[in-house]
């Protein structure tokens, strides 16, 4: 029992160590973005959806530790298109109920598309560890 436990611990700890040696610096390598650059980006963020033929598009910003805008309101049946840009470190956006799971790399804009086919209030959240406030990086999707 003792030997088996020791062996298992060594194997798993070794895997963890080897895993980290390839990942170091990945998640917490900060990208410095000046405040005025962020303000420029935020000025382009959609608080309201641009709507045509039930396609609702939103421009979003992901930054430590919030999404801007924090709340998205759409109607059932709408095709939702999110253009999201991370402005500081690696983030992610997940809305499990709609199969959304998108990594967000600093500086590059990602587009997420899904159909809001069920009514309700859903939480979207960052799913790539981004710092001490990671657990609080959430937003709300309301499907009327």
């Amino acid at each position, binding site marked *: 029992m003792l030997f088996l*436990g020791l062996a298992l*611990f060594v194997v798993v*700890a070794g*895997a963890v160590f080897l895993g980290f040696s390839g990942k170091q610096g990945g998640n917490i390598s900060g990208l410095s973005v000046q405040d005025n650059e962020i303000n420029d980006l935020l000025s382009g963020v959609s608080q309201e959806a641009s709507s045509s033929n039930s396609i609702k598009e939103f421009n979003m910003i992901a930054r430590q530790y919030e999404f801007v805008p924090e709340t998205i309101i759409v109607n059932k049946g709408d095709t939702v298109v999110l253009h999201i840009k991370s402005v500081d470190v690696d983030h992610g956006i997940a809305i499990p109920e709609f199969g959304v799971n998108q990594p967000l790399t600093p500086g590059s804009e990602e587009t997420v598309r899904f159909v809001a086919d069920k009514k309700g209030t859903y939480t979207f959240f960052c799913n790539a*560890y981004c710092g001490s406030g990671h*657990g609080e*990086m959430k937003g709300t999707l309301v499907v009327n």
Partner: protein
Amino acid sequence: MNLRKYSLIVLRISLSFLFLWFGFTSIFNYESLLGYLPSFAYSLSISLKTILLFNGIFEISFGLLLLLGFYVRISAILLSLHTLIIMLSIGYNDVVVRDFGIALAAFSVFLNGEDEWCLRKRLRKK
């Protein structure tokens, strides 16, 4: 005064509270932990809530065994390995440094095995 005999008891009990707390959070406040699930969890056929439910049941079960002092070695090594696997899936960051300490603390309980205050040992003595 010899306090050495209490050191591993304190370690075992405090660790069990930690795993119980994580376990109950996993079940009753699962939304706060959704962001910590590894990316492969999204491709599984079961929901994230169910994964966290099973995680919670695992942590509460072995946390209780650790607290009461039954199957201490098995519980401690499983919880230690569980923490190492969580570390691997989250990636290198400041949380992992904390988890590394927890994994090694559980491993030291595994190395020690049962202490004097373990219920199983006390029942055996009677």
